C-alpha cells in the first residue's frame, strides 16, 4: 500500500506531475493556483527539469509549445482569466498535435470575477476555447487524491493520441487538504521511449522533423485525420464513476467539487427514502454520453448539479436526448452546493417543479430590462 499523506490539492497536483515525469513547467502567478508554480519552483530543478516564471500566460503556454515539441512532458497551470489568455497557445498545440498538460483551477467569472472556486469554464474547456475545430482531453478530479494521480493518466492519453490534455478543477479543490496517496511509482522520463515526430539533435541523417501549425492546402486532410483520433477517443477513453445508479428515480450528473456535495445528498436521500443516484463524469471530453443515455431510460428525472449557469446541462441534454426530463440545479459565481440544497432540488425534479430547479427563461419571466443610451 502506498503511504497516505496529508496534502493540499495544488501541491498534490504539482508533486503528482513531477512523479508522472513532467520536466518542464512554465506559469504566471494567479490565485487560487499559486501553490502549483511555487511547488515547481522549489522541486523541479531537483528532479532535473526546468521551471520558468513566464512574463504572461500567453508566453507560458508558448514555452510549453516549445518544450512539448521536443517530446518533454511539459505543463502549465493557471486559473480562469489566465486560461483565457492561454487559448491561443492551446489552439496551436492542438493543431501541431503536441501532447502536454494544462491545468485550470477555476475561479469565479466572467472577467476578473472573484477568487472563489467555480465551474464556469466548462464550455471553454470542452468546446475548444481557442479558434478552429479541435478537442482537448478534459479530466475533472474531485479529490486531492485524484489531483495527485491524474497527471500520469493525462500525459499517457495525451501522448497516445497526440491531443493536449487539461485537468479542470477549481479553487476549492486546489486549496483544500486531504489524506491522499499516489497510486504509481515515480516515472523517470529518461526511461520513456522517444517520439518519431519530436524535434531533436544529433540525428545522424534521420529525416528532418517539422512541428508546425500552418497547414495550407493540407488543412482539410489534417483536420479529417485528427477527427479519426477524436472518434477513437470518444469510443475508448470515456471515464466516469457511478453511485447508487441501480434503481434510482433521480439521476444526478455532476463533476468535480459539485460531485462531492452530491455524495452528501446521496447519503441524506437514503435516510429520507428517496432513490437518488449519481453519475460523475471524470472525462468531460470525451463525455460519457452513452452511459447517461442508458441510465436516462431507467429514471424518472435527470438533475444536473453544476457551479455554473447551465453549461454541463447542455451536454447532459444532448446525451439524454429526450428519454427523461432534464433539470438544472445551478450554483454560479462562486456559490457552492450543499447536500441539503441538492436534495431539495432532487425532490423538485421528481415533481417536475419546485425549489432548486433553474430555468433561464422562467427566471426572467416578467422582467423587462430597459438598456441602451439615455
Amino acid at each position: 500500500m502506498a503511504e497516505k499523506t496529508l496534502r493540499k490539492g495544488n501541491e498534490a497536483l504539482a508533486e503528482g506531475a513531477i512523479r508522472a515525469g513532467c520536466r518542464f513547467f512554465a506559469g504566471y502567478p494567479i490565485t487560487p493556483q499559486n501553490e502549483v508554480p511555487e511547488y515547481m519552483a522549489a522541486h523541479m530543478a531537483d528532479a532535473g527539469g526546468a521551471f520558468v516564471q513566464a512574463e504572461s500566460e500567453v508566453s507560458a503556454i508558448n514555452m510549453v509549445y516549445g518544450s512539448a515539441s521536443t517530446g518533454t512532458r511539459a505543463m502549465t497551470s493557471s486559473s480562469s482569466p489566465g486560461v483565457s489568455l492561454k487559448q491561443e497557445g492551446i489552439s496551436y498545440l492542438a493543431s501541431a498535435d503536441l501532447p502536454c498538460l494544462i491545468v485550470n483551477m477555476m475561479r469565479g467569472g466572467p472577467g476578473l470575477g472573484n477568487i472563489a472556486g467555480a465551474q464556469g469554464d466548462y464550455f471553454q474547456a470542452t468546446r475548444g476555447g481557442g479558434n478552429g475545430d479541435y478537442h482537448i482531453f478534459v479530466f475533472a478530479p474531485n479529490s486531492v487524491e485524484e489531483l495527485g494521480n491524474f497527471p500520469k493518466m493525462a500525459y499517457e492519453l495525451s501522448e497516445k493520441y497526440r491531443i493536449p490534455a487539461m485537468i479542470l478543477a477549481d479553487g476549492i479543490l486546489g486549496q483544500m487538504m486531504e489524506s491522499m496517496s499516489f497510486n504509481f511509482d515515480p516515472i523517470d522520463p529518461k526511461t520513456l521511449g522517444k517520439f518519431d515526430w519530436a524535434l531533436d539533435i544529433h540525428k545522424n541523417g534521420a529525416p528532418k522533423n517539422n512541428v508546425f501549425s500552418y497547414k495550407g492546402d493540407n488543412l482539410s486532410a489534417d483536420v479529417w485525420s485528427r477527427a479519426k483520433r477524436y472518434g477513437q477517443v470518444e469510443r475508448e477513453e470515456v471515464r466516469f464513476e457511478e453511485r447508487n445508479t441501480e434503481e434510482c428515480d433521480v439521476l444526478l450528473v455532476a463533476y468535480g467539487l459539485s460531485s462531492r456535495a452530491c455524495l452528501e445528498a446521496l447519503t441524506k436521500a437514503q435516510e429520507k427514502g428517496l432513490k437518488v443516484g449519481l453519475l460523475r463524469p471524470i472525462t468531460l471530453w470525451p463525455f460519457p454520453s452513452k452511459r447517461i443515455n442508458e441510465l436516462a431510460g431507467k429514471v424518472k428525472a435527470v438533475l444536473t448539479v453544476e457551479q455554473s449557469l447551465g453549461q454541463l446541462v447542455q451536454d447532459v441534454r444532448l446525451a439524454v436526448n429526450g428519454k427523461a426530463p432534464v433539470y438544472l440545479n445551478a450554483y454560479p459565481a462562486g456559490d457552492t452546493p450543499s447536500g441539503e440544497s441538492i436534495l431539495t432540488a432532487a425532490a423538485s425534479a421528481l415533481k417536475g417543479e419546485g425549489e432548486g430547479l433553474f430555468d433561464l427563461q422562467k427566471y426572467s419571466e416578467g422582467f423587462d430590462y430597459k438598456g441602451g443610451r439615455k
Partner: protein
Amino acid sequence: MTIIAQKPHSLTDVPMHYCPGCGHGIVHRLMGEAIDELNIGDKVIGVAPVGCAVFADSYFACDMIQGAHGRGPAIATGIKRSKPEAIVFSYQGDGDLASIGMAEIVHAAARSEHITVIFINNAIYGMTGGQMAPTTLVGQVATTAPKGRDPLLQGWPINICEMLSALKGAKYLERVAVDSPQHVMAAKKAIKKAFENQVKGIGFSLVEVLSQCPTNWGVDPLKSLEFVRTKMMTQYPLGVFKDEGAE
C-alpha cells in the same frame, strides 16, 4: 573537380517563395553559412515566425517549429530549457518581434535565454500586404498609414537594439544590413557571432537586419536598396550596441 561555391548544407533544396529583391533569402543563406562554418548543423533547432518567413521551417535542414505570431522567443525558451545542448534560433520579422511579440522578446532578453534571435526589420508588414509596422519610418506610407506615418497619430518607430541594450541580460546586440556586398559580409560576421555566442554559453544574442521589401514599399529592387541606405539607416544606425562576449 574543386567546389568553389555551393549552397550551405544547412539549407534544404526547397525553392524559396520570397519576392524578387527581398532580403529574407540573403539572410537565410548567411545563417546557413554560419551554421555550416561553426559545424553545429546537427545541433540546431529553429523557430519560424508568422509573417513572410512562415515557411522558413521548410528552408532550413534542421528540425524546425513554427508557432504563433510573436511567440518565437517563448517557444525557443521552452526548447532550450528542455534541450540545453541544442543550438536554438528564433527568426522573426518586425511586426512579430517589435509589436505583437514585444513582451516575449524583452523578457527572453531579460532572462538572458541562451538563444540566437535573427530579427528582420523591413519597416512594413509584408505577408499581410504592406500595413504599418512598429518600425515604419515617420512619413513612410503604408496601407494603414495612407498619408504616411504621423507620429502624433501613430507614434514613433521603435529601435529594438537600442531598447534592449538597457537590459543586463542582453549580451550581444548588433544592427546590420543586406543592401550591399560589404554590408552582407558584415551581416554574415554578426550572424555567425550570434550563433557562436550560444555555443560558448554567453547568453542572449540578437542581430537586427535592415532588409528591403520592394513589393510592399512599392519601388523596384534597386530603389529599395537606396531606401535602406538613405532612410532606414538614418532612423536605425548600423553598429554594435552590446557585446559582452567580446574577447
